[in-house]
């Protein structure tokens, strides 16, 4: 029942906002739908915590400790982003960059995107997971090209073609997976692609087929995670789309794509019986972390800067999942959470900062603390948090990942440290002059919504200082499930 609500509410919201999205109260309506989804998801979480994993509707949907936490994160950030987007979009309309028709498209696609992501997370069917991932891609293509400028069209085109190819490769992987499953499970129609069924017989699946399938799935879904060398779409899409979209892309979509990769990794590792899939994740992860960090230095656009920072962090998380074992998985899940919260709050402030300065060029944004102390300090605190400074939660997860890497694969530690150091210097040297300094920019026409920013940062801080035992137990259960 809760499941039905979690999936149905955003879909209903899509239709409702497709009808009413151009009205002046559409922003509030968007918040309302997001809040209802959040409430339904809370009920679902409570139920899963009380009664354990849930497998419903002919086993087509699965809620276990791994995905329920991502569901909670997704709907929460979806809700706060909706709060942020209301004044943000008003200001954009005030500046004449959007009209009511575009806003209708935006609100409707926003809910469709949430629905697609939740479906991808909750389904137990690998085929349906693929369909949901493609739906998420298609709905965001329209969101990225919302401003209809040359640059945004180019970004959306790149995003569509690259992710389209990626998603096609993932489909080939899924076909191979079905092929392997058919050998073992026999022809049972829909059931041969169910993850739980595959998981139960993974030792008997043909390792050669599964190996090849995993390569295709990793490259395919990896494109959406933004792993180097398939990351080209990510900075463009983040820079040219509206800021709420950048926030949900970075904070949520990358996580969901990585979730798909990890589900496939569990199957592949069980079948092959070696650590090869994990090693592949580690390789891709390290490459992304290092190159993402070095690319940071060359960025002149504030949203591109943090787009590359997302590549770096997704690299670190992928690396941690590749390491495997309870501690690294725990750290990876924690890092997923804190990265989403921090990165979306950074995009919120970066969006308002570029609205206040009238440009996204880093060189032209100056003296944010003078224009609006909340925006300036929000950006500063967010940057400090994402760079992994101690009291924040990012430090905890990065520390855990580093120590595990040091124990299991000492060679990788210096590489990781270089990536973190380079990223620190790169971001800090660019953010510092943006926040401090002189500016004569006029104040914003609508007051910005800074509550989500500080709420997110407070949560990240709390996770760094004190982790509630219930949450830790939750992460541990999910980490056990991932194994490796």
């Amino acid at each position, binding site marked *: 029942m809760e499941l039905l609500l979690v999936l149905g509410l955003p879909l209903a919201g899509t239709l409702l906002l497709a009808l009413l999205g151009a009205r002046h109260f559409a922003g509030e309506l968007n918040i309302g739908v997001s809040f209802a989804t959040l409430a339904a998801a809370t009920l679902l979480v409570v139920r899963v915590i009380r009664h354990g994993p849930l497998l419903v509707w002919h086993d087509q949907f699965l809620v276990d400790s791994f995905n329920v936490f991502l569901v909670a994160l997704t709907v929460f950030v979806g809700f706060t982003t909706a709060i942020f987007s209301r004044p943000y979009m008003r200001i954009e309309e005030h500046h004449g960059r959007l009209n009511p028709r575009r806003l209708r498209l935006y609100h409707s696609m926003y809910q469709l995107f949430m629905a697609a992501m939740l479906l991808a997370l909750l389904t137990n*069917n690998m*085929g*349906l997971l*693929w*369909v949901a991932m*493609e*739906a998420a891609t*298609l709905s965001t*293509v*329209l969101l990225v*090209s919302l401003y*209809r*400028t*040359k*640059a945004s*069209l*180019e*970004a*959306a*085109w*790149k995003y*569509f*073609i690259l992710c*389209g*190819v990626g998603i*096609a490769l993932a*489909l*080939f992987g899924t*076909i*191979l997976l*079905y*092929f392997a499953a*058919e*050998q073992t499970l026999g*022809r049972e*129609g*829909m059931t*041969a*692609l169910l993850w739980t069924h595959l998981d139960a017989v993974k030792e008997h699946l*043909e390792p*050669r*087929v599964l190996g*090849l399938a995993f390569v295709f799935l990793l490259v395919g879904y990896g494109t959406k995670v933004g792993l180097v060398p398939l990351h080209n779409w990510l900075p*463009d899409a983040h*820079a*040219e789309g509206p800021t709420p979209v950048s926030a949900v892309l970075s904070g949520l979509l990358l996580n969901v794509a990585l979730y798909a990769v990890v589900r496939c990794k569990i199957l592949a590792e069980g079948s092959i019986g070696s650590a090869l899939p994990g090693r592949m994740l580690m390789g891709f992860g390290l490459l992304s972390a290092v190159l993402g960090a070095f*690319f940071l230095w*060359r*960025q*002149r656009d504030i949203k591109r800067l943090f787009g590359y920072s997302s590549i770096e962090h997704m690299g670190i998380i992928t690396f941690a999942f590749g390491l495997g074992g309870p501690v690294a998985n725990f750290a990876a899940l924690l890092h997923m959470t804190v990265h989403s919260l921090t990165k979306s709050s950074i995009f919120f402030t970066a969006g308002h900062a570029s609205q206040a300065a009238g440009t996204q060029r880093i060189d032209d944004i100056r003296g944010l603390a003078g224009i609006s102390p909340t925006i300036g300090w929000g950006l500063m605190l967010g940057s400090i948090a994402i760079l992994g400074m101690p009291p924040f939660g990012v430090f905890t997860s990065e520390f855990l990942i580093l120590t595990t890497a040091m124990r299991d694969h000492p060679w990788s530690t210096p590489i990781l440290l270089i990536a973190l150091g380079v990223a620190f210097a790169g971001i800090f040297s660019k953010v510092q002059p943006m926040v401090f300094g002189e500016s004569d920019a006029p104040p914003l026409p609508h007051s910005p919504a800074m509550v989500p920013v500080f709420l997110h940062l407070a949560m990240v801080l709390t996770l760094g200082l004190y982790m509630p035992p219930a949450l830790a137990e939750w992460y541990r259960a999910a980490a056990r499930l991932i194994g490796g």
Partner: protein
Amino acid sequence: MLKSQLIAQSLKLLAACLLLISFAMLSRRRTQRLVILFAWQGAILFLSTCLVAYDAGLTELWYSAALTLVLKVIALPWILHRLIQRLGAQWDTEPIVNIPITMLAGLALVIFAFGLAQPISMLATTITRNTLGIALAVILLSFLMMITRRKAVTQVIGFLAMENGLFFAATSATYGMPMVIELGIALDLLVGVFILGIFFFQIREQFDSLDLHHLEALRED
């Protein structure tokens, strides 16, 4: 026994035709021609799906064959044709592509695909097992086409050809994936083309051309 052998033989023939068409696509410069070739590819896909459906006696596969006929042989080529006409792009060519080198690269890809698929095809129990390599080759060739071409329409045809290859893989290796998923794929395909249709018009409006060379402003500084 004879009948099933005949079916297996004709499937191999169709698979070979599919590969041939992929090469023909690589060698064509004119966009209009590519649409016709794409329609042919859809027709072959339809025939091969019918054969597998007949042999396996699965009703699901008949549905998906009908879907292929409607979508890939009639609807999509027609939409693409209309799109090209409305954009006045019938005579557009791709001047910069080096055809001989592309063909050689294509050959290398086919060999690679066969090498990759061989150990897996051995495991297949279906009569169409040898065609998995060809399906992979078609996917890779379409990929090559997308990389080498510059026009938006050509890239989309490359993408659609890739989906054809995937669909062929789904029938050849597994006797058709479960129905709901095929529907999802078909739907996504259509939505994708729909979006691209809108896109073309906007690219046209903004840049006065469908040449993607204009889309190179976003680079690393």
